[in-house]
């Protein structure tokens, strides 16, 4: 049996409300909140980045897995905001956690699904017998261009999974990936902000690929939506995951536990992984979980998990997603937010 033996998330404490961003740009906050079903998002402090978020999330995963970090044979971090363009985020995480040096490491990139890429590859290595444990992290501190629609949702956070074959808490039953060339959202090398193709990011991108991977994995596994207790999809806003869930045949109730985007925002590579983490915080033995990520460009990774009795033993060993979402929040003004996100031009 191969699957998740430890999981952990990290969300920064700072927040900014949709109201505050709308006020800055002279937009109507109520219509934005209605259309996006999003109210506030997480903001990384000046001293936080994908690497620091990955370290904290991985520490929580280790608290749950209770394994010797030295037994981890691969560390993969998926992000679209790696602090270095050349130098993998994983090397710092390795030193911070006491992993290695006999370890394989890599950075993954595929817009918002880079985290599930790390999960898929980590899982495959354990399955192939190459490594005993793999650490897969999806984390981001993405930028939304000032005044752009994505500024309301682009947030920061991440989740780490330790994948192995002993004391598995959530077995990975099935995986399926679906990829086409679809330039719905991208960032050219050297540019500071990404760009997107407006409504083209909807049906031809998000929906097409989640449906493609979702239907693909259902067919491959022979399961139907009603077999599942929980479902989580990539969450660019509050509305899209509810719509695609419905199109695939899932109910709102099945999405409830993982639907954290209205208060977290879109943590990009951390999005569906953190939704999964929120589900794992409450799931019980025997539960089936359906997960499909989406990364612009475009593609989706689908997973089916089955929870074991081990999950209940590890849930309380580290902070839970809802605790981090609700506790110790510090709200920022737009000016503070712009400073934290380094949107203000300074002398070098």
């Amino acid at each position: 049996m191969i699957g998740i033996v430890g999981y952990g998330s990290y969300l920064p404490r700072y927040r900014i409300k949709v109201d505050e961003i709308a006020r800055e740009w002279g937009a109507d906050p109520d219509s934005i909140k209605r259309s996006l079903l999003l109210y506030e998002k997480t903001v990384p402090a000046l001293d936080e980045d994908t690497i620091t978020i990955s370290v904290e999330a991985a520490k929580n995963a280790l608290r749950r897995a209770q394994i010797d970090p030295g037994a981890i044979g691969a560390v993969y971090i998926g992000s679209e905001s790696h602090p270095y363009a050349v130098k993998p985020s994983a090397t710092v995480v390795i030193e911070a956690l006491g992993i290695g040096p006999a370890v394989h490491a890599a950075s993954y990139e595929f817009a918002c699904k880079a985290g599930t890429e790390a999960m898929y590859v980590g899982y495959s290595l354990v399955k192939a017998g190459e490594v005993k444990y793999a650490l897969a992290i999806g984390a981001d501190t993405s930028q939304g261009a000032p005044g752009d629609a994505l500024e309301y949702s682009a947030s920061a956070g991440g989740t780490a999974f330790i994948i192995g074959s002993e004391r598995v808490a959530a077995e990975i039953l099935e995986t399926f990936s679906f990829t086409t060339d679809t330039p719905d959202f991208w960032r050219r090398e050297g540019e500071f902000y990404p760009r997107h193709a407006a409504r083209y990011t909807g049906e031809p991108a998000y929906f097409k690929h989640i449906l493609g991977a979702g239907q693909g994995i259902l067919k491959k596994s022979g399961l139907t939506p009603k077999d599942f207790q929980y479902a989580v999809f990539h969450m660019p806003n509050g509305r899209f995951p509810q719509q695609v869930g419905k199109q695939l045949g899932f109910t709102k109730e099945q999405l409830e536990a993982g639907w954290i985007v209205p208060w977290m925002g879109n943590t990009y590579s951390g999005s569906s992984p953190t939704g999964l983490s929120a589900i794992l915080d409450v799931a019980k033995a025997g539960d089936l979980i359906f997960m499909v990520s989406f990364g612009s460009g475009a593609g989706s990774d689908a997973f089916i998990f089955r929870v074991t009795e081990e999950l209940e033993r590890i849930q309380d060993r580290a902070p839970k997603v809802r605790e981090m979402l609700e506790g110790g929040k510090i709200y920022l003004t737009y000016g503070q937010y712009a400073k934290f996100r380094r949107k203000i031009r300074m002398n070098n």
Partner: protein
Amino acid sequence: MPSPRYTRENPQRLHLEAAKCTKCGKISFPPRLLCPNCKGKEFQKVQLADEGKIVTYTVVRVASRAFSMETPYVVGIVELNDGVRLTTQIVDCAPEDVTIGKPVKLVFRRVQQEGNSGILEYGYKCRLV
């Protein structure tokens, strides 16, 4: 700062590695060659505790250029549960919330960076519990 000088302190800054004197038990952080307490020369590698309390602190309002974007920020001396003291920033709170004696927990943060093209420098800070 130059890469060699930065990475030499990695075991300490990233992983809290310290040296415990095998003769008298005093923990030196960072590790040393001679125990300042008993002049012993043999040490055991240990990792520092990650919780402690505030011994003293201040709110920095005028900083050097490297930290000028961050003011006001809180720096303090923290005594960890294993008796080791270190100097660090106290983050994710309003300066007014900090008082001597409050418990804290260490967190991993980016401490400095060399402009737009230099290396990123990480280390430990702490948060009020």
